């Protein structure tokens, strides 16, 4: 029995859900085995910040009761890891920050509640860069996370713990959040599928805000079908998020096996020589993926989105400006840690100075600068106008193609500590993910091979607003045609 459960946990979430639904195994049995792996993943890779065995087993029992009563659930009994900047009722949310020490969420984020309704069992909260600010998970106040493909390397970020947990086979599915690439880039570094939905598709209620005009939650999974199932469950309007899209989400699973025939795939001219360079293995994987889609009946066209080269600058002005405002709430009064100071303003300063880490402080200062009197027009407002221009660029590009293919990141995973001293180098590596974020477009990262050092490489497919069904079908085609890339050496059994 144990080996059957292990095989189920190694495999796709949708097969595990079928086994629970047909009562071949119970959700409790699955949760027990998953919790064992979660404990190992936490010890080996630092992927989890909080694990909730009792709550997970109680939730699994509830799923078993629902199954017994005849309820159909697309993700019945699937263990779920949740990034620590997303609220789960009764569990801590630190967002990787010391300033939220002791914070316990009163209720579930909408996306968590919806995945529970679909049958998921929350096993714990995963490590992340503090408040989502980072691309390596090295900015967590609770230590770095190790990549199961190579423990000396980062798993990517900011959803690094979620990615490491899924890659290590501790859970089949995790929630991440993506402000400028924080689901897609760790998916790429850990050979996973990661989806950043159209802005507003997944409600933000219950997410700890970083940059509200960009933040979106999305799934991290080991295959496209699982990602589609999770995204379908998470999507839809929510009266508690004023920016959630009012329209019903598109059907994601019907067209999943539709293939790539007839699709026009744009190859991004600006991806050929990004500032900071393109790794040759990543360049080769891009070429292979493009040919693969062409063999499946897609047409390749060269497209240009001229303002892609300005996206990093615009993103780091706008995201930090929003962060400087959003993080003003952490003042030692309403939640988290408090440091006494001289009077009320002294208390604010002492709390924030002790509570925030260096990257968060850097971004708060940058954003405060961009919004401050005398600089706002030159920096913040100009970045807003460039953002609008970028959206026009994309609209123009989508007249000649249905989706744009480019690498998710210019390099595979780098070593822990390698880029820590140079914030700008880290920011520039976001060159391929921030454009879709700024334009509010959906994008997914799909595994596309391994480098000569056996580190995963991911390819990004981005499309017009609402094109998730097409992007998932194209991602599924890449997955089907390219085959398996094996398991990471750090997979847990």
């Amino acid at each position: 029995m144990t080996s059957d459960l292990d095989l189920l946990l190694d495999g796709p979430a949708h097969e595990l859900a079928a086994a629970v639904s047909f009562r071949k195994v119970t959700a409790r049995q699955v949760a027990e085995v998953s919790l064992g792996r979660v404990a190992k993943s936490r010890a080996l890779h630092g992927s989890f910040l909080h694990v909730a065995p009792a709550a997970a087993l109680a939730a699994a029992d509830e799923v078993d009761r629902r199954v017994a009563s005849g309820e159909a659930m697309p993700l019945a009994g699937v263990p779920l890891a949740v990034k620590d900047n997303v609220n789960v009722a009764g569990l801590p949310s630190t967002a990787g920050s010391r300033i939220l020490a002791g914070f316990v969420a009163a209720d579930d984020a909408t996306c968590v509640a919806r995945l529970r309704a679909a049958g998921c069992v929350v096993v714990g909260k995963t490590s992340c860069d503090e408040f989502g600010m980072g691309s390596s998970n090295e900015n967590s106040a609770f230590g770095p996370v190790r990549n199961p493909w190579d423990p000396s390397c980062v798993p990517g970020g900011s959803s690094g713990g979620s990615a490491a947990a899924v890659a290590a086979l501790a859970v089949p599915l995790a929630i991440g959040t993506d402000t400028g690439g924080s689901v897609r880039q760790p998916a790429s570094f850990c050979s996973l599928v990661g989806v950043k939905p159209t802005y507003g598709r997944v409600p933000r209620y219950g997410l700890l805000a970083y940059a509200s005009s960009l933040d979106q939650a999305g799934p991290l999974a080991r295959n496209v079908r699982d990602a589609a199932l999770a995204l379908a469950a998470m999507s839809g309007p929510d009266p508690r998020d004023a920016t959630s899209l009012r329209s019903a989400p598109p059907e994601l699973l019907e067209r999943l096996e539709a293939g790539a025939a007839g699709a026009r795939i744009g190859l991004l001219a600006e991806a050929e020589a990004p500032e900071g360079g393109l790794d040759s293995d990543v360049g080769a994987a891009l070429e292979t993926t493009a040919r693969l889609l062409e063999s499946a009946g897609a047409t390749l066209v060269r497209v240009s989105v001229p303002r892609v080269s300005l996206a990093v600058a615009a993103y780091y002005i706008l995201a930090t400006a929003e962060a400087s405002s959003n993080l003003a709430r952490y003042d030692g009064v309403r939640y988290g840690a408090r440091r006494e100071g001289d009077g009320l303003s002294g208390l604010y300063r002492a709390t924030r100075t002790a509570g925030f880490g260096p990257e968060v402080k850097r971004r708060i200062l940058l954003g405060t600068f961009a919004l401050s009197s005398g600089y706002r027009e030159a920096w913040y407002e100009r970045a807003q106008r460039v953002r609008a221009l970028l959206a026009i660029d994309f609209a123009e590009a989508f007249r000649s193609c249905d989706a744009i293919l480019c690498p998710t990141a210019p390099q595979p995973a780098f070593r822990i500590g390698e880029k820590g001293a140079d914030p700008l180098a880290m920011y520039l590596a976001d060159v391929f993910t921030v454009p879709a974020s700024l334009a509010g477009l959906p994008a997914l990262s799909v595994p596309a091979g391994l480098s000569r050092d056996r580190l995963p490489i991911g390819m990004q497919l981005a499309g017009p607003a609402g094109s998730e069904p097409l992007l998932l079908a194209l991602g599924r085609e890449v997955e089907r045609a390219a085959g398996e890339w094996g398991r990471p050496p750090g997979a847990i059994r």
Partner: protein
Amino acid sequence: MKIDSELVRSVARLAALDLVDGEDTRLAEELTRVVDHFETLRRVPDDLLPPLPAPPPTPLRADLPAGEPGERPFVTANAPEASHGHFVVPRVVSRNG
């Protein structure tokens, strides 16, 4: 654009952050490098830039009171210090002032 220590200290004041010795100099160097990269935004000719986009209208929702302060313990449940359903802060108004 060069960001100097004085500008860093002034922005830190606005952001309610204290800087330790030497941090202003280090941050000035780091932020100058980042802001130098931001200068790329100036390469776009003004006449090409669309006007500043208006924020999208915010749909209003029903304003439903969740009860009296004392009936909402979850609001203050995470507060470092709370009393009778209120957040406790250092005294900001003196008795004689």
